């Protein structure tokens, strides 16, 4: 395989900059905006502990009397001023959004990774082995695809609660969410990978590798996997947005991360209660953040889909 790499390998950045993908990226203002917005949010989330003026997850630092402070106005009791105001617990909305985005993104990324790992593995196995293994796996995928994913997540959450001792529930909640959302989303990856595997496995180079006696796992990983990374990446991008929204939805249904460490979705669920009471900022800012994040990730996914599809270029 390496024989075919071009002899010229100057600066990797230059080559990356010159590639078709990069070109198509530079030509799409929407993609640039989306990338910048997602990067800002992701960056802000990762560095929340350093960027946020307060630590909303530390209950000892909260003063209940700071609650419901409007944006940029001093609190009636404490006189404290917050950029985006505070919520019902006196948490600084700005800081809480940063920390919340951190949780949402963590759940999103991990759920996508989980779904991806599961989907790719099962897809490879189904595509490579074929036969009854394939039939069974794809039948399961069919059921999974139709069985409502929220419902599944809801049930998984219920089960996990039954299995995990109460003392660990709070700490485990986030992992349960990840598994629940991930389990609901693996099918797409499996389908794509399976399809590609079935095509690739009959190609000469794979056959050749097989004849030399290369281990199937090696063949799958070295030869077939790189071919499916494009579509998988697209699914993953959109899956990330989907997972973040799914987390919010589950929060609405009463399962999710603990309210003392709210995710963006939990913040929105809490803020939704203040829609009619006049504290618009508790809902608005987290909702805008979620919208910006999900929208830009989706737009990136869209762009990536078009850019990676050579026939549309």
């Amino acid at each position, binding site marked *: 395989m390496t024989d075919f790499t071009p002899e010229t390998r100057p600066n990797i950045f230059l080559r990356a900059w010159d590639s078709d993908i990069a070109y198509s990226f530079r030509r799409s203002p929407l993609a640039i905006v989306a990338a910048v917005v997602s990067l800002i949010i992701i960056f802000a989330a990762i560095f929340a502990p350093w960027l946020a003026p307060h630590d909303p997850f530390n209950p000892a630092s909260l003063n209940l*009397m700071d609650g419901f402070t409007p944006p940029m106005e001093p609190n009636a009791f404490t006189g404290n001023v917050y950029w985006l105001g505070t919520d019902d617990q006196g948490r600084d909305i700005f800081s809480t959004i940063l920390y919340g985005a951190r949780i949402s993104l963590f759940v999103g990324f991990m759920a996508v990774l989980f779904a991806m790992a599961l989907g790719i593995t099962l897809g490879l196995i189904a595509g490579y082995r074929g036969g009854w293994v394939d039939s069974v796996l794809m039948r399961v995928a069919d059921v999974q695809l139709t069985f409502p994913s929220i419902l599944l997540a809801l049930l998984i959450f219920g089960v996990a609660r039954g299995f995990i001792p109460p003392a660990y529930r709070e700490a485990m909640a986030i992992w349960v969410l990840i598994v629940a959302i991930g389990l609901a989303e693996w099918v797409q990856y499996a389908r794509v990978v399976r399809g590609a595997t079935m095509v690739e496995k009959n190609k000469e180079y794979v056959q050749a590798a097989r004849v030399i006696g290369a281990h199937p796992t090696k063949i799958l990983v070295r030869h077939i996997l790189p071919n499916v990374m494009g579509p998988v990446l697209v699914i993953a991008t959109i899956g990330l947005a989907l997972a973040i929204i799914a987390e919010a939805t589950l929060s609405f249904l009463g399962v999710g991360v603990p309210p003392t460490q709210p995710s963006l979705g939990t913040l929105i669920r809490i803020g939704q*209660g203040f829609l009619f*009471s006049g504290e618009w900022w508790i809902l608005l800012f987290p909702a805008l953040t979620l919208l910006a994040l999900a929208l830009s990730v989706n737009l990136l996914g869209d762009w990536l889909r078009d850019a990676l599809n050579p026939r549309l270029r």
Partner: protein
Amino acid sequence: MNMLLTKARSGLLMGVAASALVLTSVAAHSETIRWARVGDALTLDPHSQNEGPTHTLNHHIYETLVGRDIDGSLTARLATEWEISEEDDSVWIFRIREGVTFHDGTPMTAEDVVFSLDRARTPPSGMAALHAAVEDVTAEDDHTVHVRMSGPAPLYVQNLTNTFIMSKAWAEENGVEVAPDFAAGEEAYSVRNTNGTGPYRLVERDPEVRTVLERFDDHWDDTPEVTEIIYTPISEAATRVAALLSGEVDIVQDVPVQDIARLEQTDGVIVSRGPENRNIFFSYDMTSDSLASSDAEGNPFATPEVREAMSLAIDRNAIRQVVMRGESQPSAAPLPPFVNGWTEEMDAFSDPDLDRARGLMEEAGYGDGFTVQLDCPNDRYLNDEAICQALVGMMAQIGITVDLNSQTRSLHFPLIENWETDFYLLGWGVPTFDSQYVFDFLVHTREGSYGSFNGSRYSNPELDEKIQALATMTELEERDALIAEIWEEVMEEHIFLNVHNQVLAYAMRDGINLDVHPENQPHMTTITFD
């Protein structure tokens, strides 16, 4: 046979007037009341469920011997008089009102009362626990009923405010002589059909969708102004408030506290508020050797200093101010002011004193704090989850790291029932308006019918004896003194970390007058229009 509606229909036929259109403006003196609250009555059977919303709706269709007024006092309903027999202090005598008819036109007699009380006290009736002390019920004549108790029961009449009287003949005719059984496997006729003596008759019953009642013109009491009631549960708080703001309903019963102030400022909407007979408190496992969810050596809650420190760390006024938006009555006493045994000094609490609290923690050997899990319902009481969250912050001030586990009620309450929680939130209403009810369920050692919500595992044989004695004491002054004695001990021990008494708010279209009922059981009969 149409099981869904009591209304006849054929082929394609209009349903009853639906929750009127948004666009139609409501006439100021409409006599129809469209009433929304969070959940529906579980059943229309008068004795099946001992549950607030169920009773509230049933109070419009059925009547009780005695009623509860807005101030908590008893009123004469189907019984005109009640007294303890002079010959035997374990017998209650009820004089039954004459000239009362059921909705099907048959007259109500003592026979029906005897039948109803028997039905109510026989399992699987949900009301049975309230009548546990009843030995037998007999009709002395057409309008006198004797209830024989196992011993003196001076407060028994307080237990009757939610026990409805139904027609014996109707029940026998429809095969509902006993309250419906969960395990029976088929639906009882009385779940969706009624025959009471109340001021309203059932017109339509579509559980969780809408229930329509119309005025019963042969009712014995004053004619209410409201002629028709359309009752719609709306579970989402935002939607419920939206329905009122858009004019689709006239009265919203479960108003989120944060919306009260806004609603009051809204044109055409008024809010009626008042104290509820329910207090909200935290409690903890005081007796186990160690806590399952804690890293602490031993059981910190077993140490009186820790419990006291916690009561010094909680800022009840801040909770009222911020979490409850001013809509609560902060109090240190785990019982509402309506209840016999309440005193002003029990209610009093000092401002938080963190220094002293930290000192006490130090004294108790927990100067470095400890961790513990707090179990909290998130769909049962007003802002329950937010209260717990606020407590997490306050406890953090004295070094107690609280992990919050908030979940739905059906997962929360079994934890208390099964002693699987170290630290929990509970709300308690006192339907009998007497302290004994609190002691029986929350203070007495868990055994038999006692202590089922005693999640603190508190056990004090001396106190238990006193509590048991209360049940049969007829000398009220003596009894009140004993109650005070028990309370002193309970408060001293810091068994409960009380937060506040809930305040109820009903929001309604301007022009409607409806006062808040302490048991959250508004009667549409009491509505007047401007």
